[in-house]
């Protein structure tokens, strides 16, 4: 993959300053920038080693932009009422489809979305993945190198059979998972079309994970979903809106699946607080809200730091700014991907520190 020579000195200075500011609790928007190393609840976490750990991981997550307007809106949502409403999850599922359609062909293009008639609330996309793993536990799992590390880590820990797509042909007993845009570099995986052809030929299945679709732009997602190998697709709010710990996601499938997640939905015992929160957000913000609001900042910061913008508004790519270290998992190899979210969120602080000029 092509890499630029970023302004590493500036990137490092900013990373150290934000990491320290996080410990000193003087970021513009307080919150969790420290997904890998939150430090200790009992101290301020401003010592060298605390700050250094955060420095190494501060650009590395896929987390959403902590947009102040969204945070304010979420903080004021009254969610308990949803516990008493038996239609909460159904409303959420139907609203999701409308919400997707409202912006279809603006920043993305999902063709034949109407083929997915079965909607199922998912406790984060991770619940859909877990159900996919359970259902296909006797098969061989396949992902491209650079895919979301969680899959490989779990399969390894559970001794599931899996192999990178680059390392073997697609066979009948395989099942594939692909993020679109691809998790590592924010655009369609260059072998995605080939993979669909192979899976159609062999008669195996692909789960397409659209977790980054809401933050994608320039028609980076442009897909015909009619291929029979694509039977289930997943969407989430976690990487777009600051609700990743509320686990708001959905799975769409062409045929009705028979797995634990579907059973919970059929029983109407899914998480109504999360589903209600999702509906509130969808009713008040368009799916491409972040794209519209932050696209100009992505270009500005990429220019300042000499990074290459991607088609996902909070990502850029460029040579890594620190020693390679795979946070959380040996499979988390995302060194060339920069999450720019904390730069957007801390414009005032970064201006005061001299890193940003309006």
């Amino acid at each position, binding site marked *: 993959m092509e890499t630029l020579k970023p302004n590493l000195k500036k990137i*490092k*200075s900013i990373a*150290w*300053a934000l*990491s*320290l*500011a996080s410990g*000193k609790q*003087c970021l513009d928007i307080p919150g969790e920038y420290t997904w890998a190393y939150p430090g200790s609840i009992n101290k301020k976490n401003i*010592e*060298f080693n605390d*700050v*250094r750990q955060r*420095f190494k991981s501060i650009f590395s997550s896929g987390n959403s932009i902590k947009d102040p307007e969204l945070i304010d809106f979420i903080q004021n949502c009254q969610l308990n009422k949803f516990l008493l409403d038996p239609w909460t999850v159904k409303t959420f599922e139907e609203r999701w489809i409308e919400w997707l359609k409202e912006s279809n062909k603006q920043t993305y293009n999902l063709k034949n979305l109407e083929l997915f008639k079965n909607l199922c609330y998912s406790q984060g996309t991770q619940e859909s993945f877990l159900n996919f793993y359970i259902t296909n536990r006797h098969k061989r799992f396949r992902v491209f190198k650079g895919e979301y590390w969680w899959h490989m880590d779990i399969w390894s820990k559970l001794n599931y059979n899996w192999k990178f797509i680059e390392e073997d042909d697609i066979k009948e007993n395989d099942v594939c998972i692909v993020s679109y845009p691809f998790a590592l570099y924010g655009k369609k995986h260059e072998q995605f079309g080939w993979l669909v052809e192979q899976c159609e030929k062999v008669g195996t299945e692909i789960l397409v994970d659209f977790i980054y679709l809401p933050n994608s732009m320039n028609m980076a997602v442009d897909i015909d979903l009619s291929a029979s190998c694509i039977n289930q697709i997943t969407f989430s709010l976690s990487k777009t809106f600051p609700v990743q710990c509320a686990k708001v996601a959905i799975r769409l499938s062409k045929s009705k699946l028979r797995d634990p997640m579907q059973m919970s939905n059929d029983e109407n015992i899914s998480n109504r607080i999360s589903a209600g929160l999702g509906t509130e957000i969808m009713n008040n913000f368009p799916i491409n809200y972040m794209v519209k609001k932050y696209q100009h900042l992505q270009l500005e910061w990429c220019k300042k730091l000499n990074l290459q913008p991607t088609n996902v508004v909070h990502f850029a790519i460029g040579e890594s700014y620190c*020693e390679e270290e795979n946070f959380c998992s040996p499979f988390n190899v995302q060194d060339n991907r920069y999450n720019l979210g904390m730069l957007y969120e801390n414009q005032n*602080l970064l201006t*005061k*520190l*001299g890193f940003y000029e309006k």
Partner: protein
Amino acid sequence: MSLIELKFKNINLSNNKEPIVRVVINDNELINETVKPRLVTPLSFYDDKIPEHNILKIYFANKENSDTVLDYNNNIIEDLNFELEQIIIDGYDIKDLIWNSQYVTKTEKIQSCLFFGPKGYFEFKFDMPVLKWILKTNHEKHNNDPNWEEDYNYYTEAWKLLNQI
């Protein structure tokens, strides 16, 4: 202002006599008092100009031969002694570097000894700023932190920037 914090453990009295330490840095006395589990002192006489190279000495000030009580078989049944457990300088626990020290008696120099038994003193050398010295010394010892200096510089720069606003 810089602070030195010393932690002691296993403090044993003899004939109700408590051990006393005299803590000295570069020949300037910081503490002269009974050993407690935690002793803290500012380096007040230096204001902000602490020398780069420093020698910390902890004297066992009141140990006498009569503090060691023996039975008929020459087994020690009571003794005035204690152990140094931890040194924290400017909030930084020097951790394993505490073992880069010696205990000096009239007759010998015992390397890496934190036990205050015989009359003598504990001697430990360190540089300021202490964080820089800790990172450098650890890297020299274990050869596992090649970026220590660059990261230290970025860290201090970040503090300066954030202190300005």
